[in-house]
C-alpha cells in the first residue's frame, strides 16, 4: 500500500511539473513584446526597463525557467500587473467560490445519477425514458442549460437570484445564489455519471452472486441496493477521476453565465488586461487542482476496493 501511495504521488508530481513547464513554455513563446503589450507604445524607456526587470525578461530563458520553478516551488506565483497584488492572494479570494461550486455540482450530480440509475434498472419502462432523457441532457451545452434554468427559475418565475454573489458571510443568501449555478453543473455532469452507473450496474447484475441472491428470494429492489450497488460503484470511481477537468471547466462556464466572481471571471479579466503573471498562476492552479482531484480519486479507489493490494 505504501509503495503504491508513493508511486502514485510521484506520478502526480511529475505530471504537475510537466504541465506547469508546458504552461511556462507557452508564455515564453509569446509573440511580440509582453512589455509593450502591457505598457502600450508610448511608454518611457525607463518604465520599460523597470518592468522588464520586474518580469525577469532581461535574463536568458533557461535562467528565467529556473527562477520561475524555484519561486513556484515556494508557492510564490508572482504579482498581478492589473491588481498590483500577489497572485496567490487574488486566487485565495476566488478559489472558495469555484471549489464550492465544483463540490455542490459533483455532489448534486451523484445524488441525481445514482438513484436514477437504480430506478432505471428496477423498472424497464423507466429505463427507456431515463436513458433517452440522459442522452439528450448529455448533448445540451452547459451554458445553454444555465441560460434555460436562468430564464425559467429566475426571470419567468423569479424564485432564485439571476446573478451575483453576496459572499460567504451570509450563508443562506450565498446558498440561494449558488443554487441555480450548482444545479446547472450537477445536471450537466449527472448525464454521463448516470450512463456510467447504469452500465456498471448492468455488468454487475449478470454476476453469479446476483443470481444466488435472487434464487434465495431476495426482493429485486434489495438485490440492487444491497448486492449490486457497492461493487458497481467501483468502476464509477475510476470515471469520477476523469471528471475533474470537466467539473472545473464547467464551473468556469457556469460562473460566467451567472456572473459569479470566481476563477473564471478572473481568468477572463487577466486575459483582457494582458496580465500574464495572473493568467499563468490561474492556469497553473487549475491544472494542479485537476491533478490533485485525480490523485484523491485514485487513492479513494485503493481504500474502497479490498481486492486491490498494492504490492
Amino acid at each position: 500500500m505504501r509503495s503504491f501511495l508513493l508511486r502514485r504521488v510521484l506520478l502526480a508530481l511529475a505530471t504537475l511539473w510537466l504541465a506547469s513547464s508546458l504552461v511556462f513554455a507557452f508564455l515564453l513563446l509569446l509573440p511580440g513584446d509582453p512589455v509593450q503589450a502591457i505598457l502600450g507604445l508610448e511608454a518611457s524607456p525607463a518604465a520599460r526597463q523597470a518592468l522588464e526587470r520586474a518580469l525577469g525578461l532581461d535574463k536568458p530563458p533557461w535562467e528565467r525557467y529556473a527562477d520561475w520553478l524555484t519561486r513556484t516551488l515556494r508557492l510564490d506565483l508572482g504579482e498581478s500587473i492589473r491588481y498590483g497584488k500577489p497572485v496567490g492572494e487574488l486566487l485565495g479570494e476566488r478559489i472558495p467560490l469555484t471549489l464550492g461550486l465544483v463540490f455542490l455540482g459533483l455532489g448534486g450530480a451523484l445524488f441525481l445519477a445514482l438513484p436514477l440509475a437504480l430506478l432505471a434498472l428496477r423498472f424497464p419502462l423507466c429505463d427507456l425514458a431515463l436513458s433517452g432523457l440522459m442522452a439528450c441532457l448529455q448533448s445540451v451545452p452547459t451554458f445553454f442549460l444555465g441560460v434555460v434554468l436562468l430564464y425559467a427559475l429566475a426571470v419567468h418565475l423569479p424564485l432564485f437570484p439571476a446573478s451575483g454573489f453576496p459572499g460567504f458571510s451570509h450563508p443562506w443568501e450565498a446558498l440561494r445564489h449558488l443554487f441555480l449555478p450548482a444545479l446547472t453543473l450537477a445536471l450537466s455532469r449527472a448525464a454521463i455519471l448516470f450512463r456510467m452507473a447504469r452500465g456498471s450496474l448492468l455488468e454487475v447484475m449478470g454476476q453469479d452472486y446476483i443470481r444466488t441472491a435472487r434464487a434465495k428470494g431476495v426482493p429485486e429492489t434489495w438485490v440492487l441496493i444491497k448486492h449490486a450497488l457497492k461493487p458497481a460503484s467501483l468502476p464509477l470511481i475510476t470515471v469520477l477521476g476523469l471528471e475533474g477537468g470537466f467539473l472545473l471547466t464547467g464551473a468556469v462556464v457556469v460562473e460566467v453565465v451567472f456572473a459569479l466572481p470566481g476563477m473564471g471571471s478572473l481568468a477572463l479579466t487577466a486575459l483582457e488586461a494582458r496580465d500574464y503573471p495572473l493568467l499563468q498562476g490561474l492556469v497553473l492552479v487549475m491544472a494542479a487542482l485537476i491533478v490533485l482531484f485525480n490523485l484523491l480519486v485514485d487513492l479513494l479507489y485503493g481504500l474502497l476496493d479490498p481486492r486491490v493490494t498494492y504490492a
Partner: protein
Amino acid sequence: MRSPSPSLLVGSLLVGLFLLLALASLLYPVDPNAPDFLHRLAPPSPTHPLGTDPLGRDLLARLLHGAKNALLVGGIAVSVGFSLGVALGLVAGYLGRYWDGALSLLMEALYALPGLLLALLFAALMGPGVLSSMLAVGLSMVPAFFRVARAGAMALKATPFVEAALALGAGPAWVIRRHLFPNLLGPLLVQASLAFAAALLAEAALSYLGLGIQPPAPSLGRMLREAQGFLPLSPYPALVPGLALSLAVLGFNLLGDGLRDRLDPRR
C-alpha cells in the same frame, strides 16, 4: 446484414440535418451581419423566418452561418486531435518501453490542461479567435485518441499477422502504417464521432466566453451570449442557437454510440 440500430439511424439523421444547415448558408441570400433596426428581437415572420436578434440581424442567416463555422472549427480541431493522438498512441503502444513511458506522461500532463485552459494560453499567445480555439480544442483531444490508439496497438502487437510481417523484415514504421492503423480504424472512427460532439460543445463554450470565434462573425455560442441579456424580452435568440447546437451534439453522440455497437465484435 443487420438493420441499423435506432441510435445509428437518428444520429445520422441529425448529423445530416446539421450538415444541410451548414450547406444552406451558401444558398440563403440574407447577410448574417446586416442589422434591421426596425425589427429588433422580432418573433418569426415571413421576412425573418426565425425572428431577429437584439441588433435586428436575421436569426436564420446567423444560425446557418454559425452551423457552418461550428462544423469547420470542429472538423479542424478533431483532425488535429486525431492525427497527433493516433500517431503518438500507435508509436507508444507499438514501441513500448521508454517511448510509452514518456508519451504517456506527456498525455497525463496534457490531460491536466483541459481545452479551456489551453484556450486561455493560446488566446494569450495569439489573441482570442478561431485559430487559437481550434488549436486548443484539438490539442485537448489528443489524449483521448492517444488512449484508443495505444491500447489497440498493444493488443495487435502480438497477433500472428504482425509477427508474420516482422518475420518478412518489415520495420516499425511499415507495421504501424500498414497493419496497425487500418485495423484500428473502426474504434478510431467511433472516437472521432464522439470527439466531434465534444469539439462542438467546447468550441461553443469558448465562443460563449469570448475566447473563440470573434464578433461579428456568427457563432452559435456567441449568439447565446448576446441573447442572454434580452431573455425577458424575447427567448427566441437564445433558443435557436441553443437547440440547434444541442441537436447537433446529440446527433454526433448517437452516431458514435451506434457505430460502436455496430463494430463491437461481442454482439
